[in-house]
């Protein structure tokens, strides 16, 4: 690992100042960034830990929204959302393993936008709002391709507001070694309308399966998906599964998620 300076500010204002310096990078739970640094795939001059900032911790529930502060760990998010948004709590409680969940954060997961991460599916399916120190970004605008986001340099996610759907479920087909999603599908129903977000499958990262959303409109049953086929074009094919396999899994997991709603 290349060396770097390290800061651990206790206020958001200090973090913003520290991150304004050239080649500074934010560090949340580090469960992706630290392995990346070990492989010398990143070489920041400075890491700014966000974990000692009290304002970035906690879960607030109200007005049909679960608001998770950015540096809330998966364990804390799962506990905080359990009563009001069980599907989100279940997703958070099944990321990685217990030790990873004690460090990894919602903000870190979204800012990294790993194509197989779980949280992006929840954010996109619920139409969450990603709040930063500068602005509010809708999930539809936030994800811009594999590992890509709308975040600018030095911009910090402060909280994520998840609208609570009338019904929701997340189905993850795990890659058993990494516990990332080989394919994960988050289905959220708001009234007649359903949103279906797929992670793990596409070379562009998380995406909405709009054909499935149309098929489920006004007829929210697993059978509504029977006639659909997802094209394997643009899907990930690797040693864990071909693009065709992931296309097939997407339909299966979407069906299971609808059935479990």
């Amino acid at each position, binding site marked *: 690992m290349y060396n770097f300076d390290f800061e651990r500010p206790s206020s958001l204002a200090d973090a913003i100042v520290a991150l304004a310096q050239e080649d500074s990078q934010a560090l949340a739970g580090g469960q992706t960034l630290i*392995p990346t640094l*070990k492989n010398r795939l990143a070489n920041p001059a400075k890491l700014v830990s966000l*974990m000692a900032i009290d304002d970035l911790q906690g879960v607030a529930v109200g007005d049909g929204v679960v608001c998770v502060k950015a540096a809330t760990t998966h364990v804390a998010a799962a506990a905080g959302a359990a009563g009001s948004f069980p599907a989100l709590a279940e997703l958070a409680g099944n990321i990685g393993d217990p030790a*990873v969940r004690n460090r990894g954060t919602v903000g870190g997961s979204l800012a990294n936008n790993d194509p197989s991460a779980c949280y992006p599916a929840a954010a996109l399916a619920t139409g969450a709002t990603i709040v930063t120190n500068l602005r509010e970004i809708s999930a539809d605008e936030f994800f811009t391709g594999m590992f890509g986001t709308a975040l600018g340099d030095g911009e910090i996610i402060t909280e994520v507001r998840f609208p609570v759907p009338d019904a929701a479920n997340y189905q993850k087909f795990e890659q058993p070694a990494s516990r990332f999603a080989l394919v994960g599908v988050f289905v959220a129903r708001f009234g007649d309308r359903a949103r279906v977000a797929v992670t793990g499958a596409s070379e562009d990262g998380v995406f909405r399966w709009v054909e499935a959303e149309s098929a489920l409109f006004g007829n929210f049953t697993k059978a509504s998906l029977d006639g659909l086929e997802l094209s394997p074009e643009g899907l990930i094919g690797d040693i864990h599964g071909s693009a065709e396999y992931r296309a097939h899994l997407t339909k299966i997991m979407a069906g299971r998620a609808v059935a479990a709603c």
Partner: protein
Amino acid sequence: MNEVSFVVNGREVSGEVEGRTLLSEFLRENLRLTGTHVGCDTSQCGACVVHVDGNAVKSCTMFALEAEGSNVLTIEGMANEDGSLGVIQQAFQDHHGLQCGFCTPGMVMSASALISENPDPSEMEIRDYLEGNICRCTGYHNIVKAIQAAAEATRTQAA
């Protein structure tokens, strides 16, 4: 270099570290607490699990400077005060929950975190909690038995 200080196994420690110094590295190289093992160094194997403020974490995937001001518990802190094996350690011996022993420090620390969170875990709950702890010798059965026995012994002690 940066100064870091925190509490390990009830003792205040401090030292000079680089930004990139991992908690596992600081524990092993600076403090000579070599019971914390580094098996994979890629967050997979869990041999390096310690508790930071009561939470199980992989010490190879956390910087020493992130532990500033915290309370760290390592495998060296799991024995009884007289030096005899703690409840979980004794259960691993009684149930043959280790062969080569390399993964055992992480297994014991994860088991300890599990039993604190869930005093009466089922077999499935134990296996699920050990998802991030890899053992290449035992096939896990005796580790699970040891943790079930340790949980029971802990409940009996508490009663």
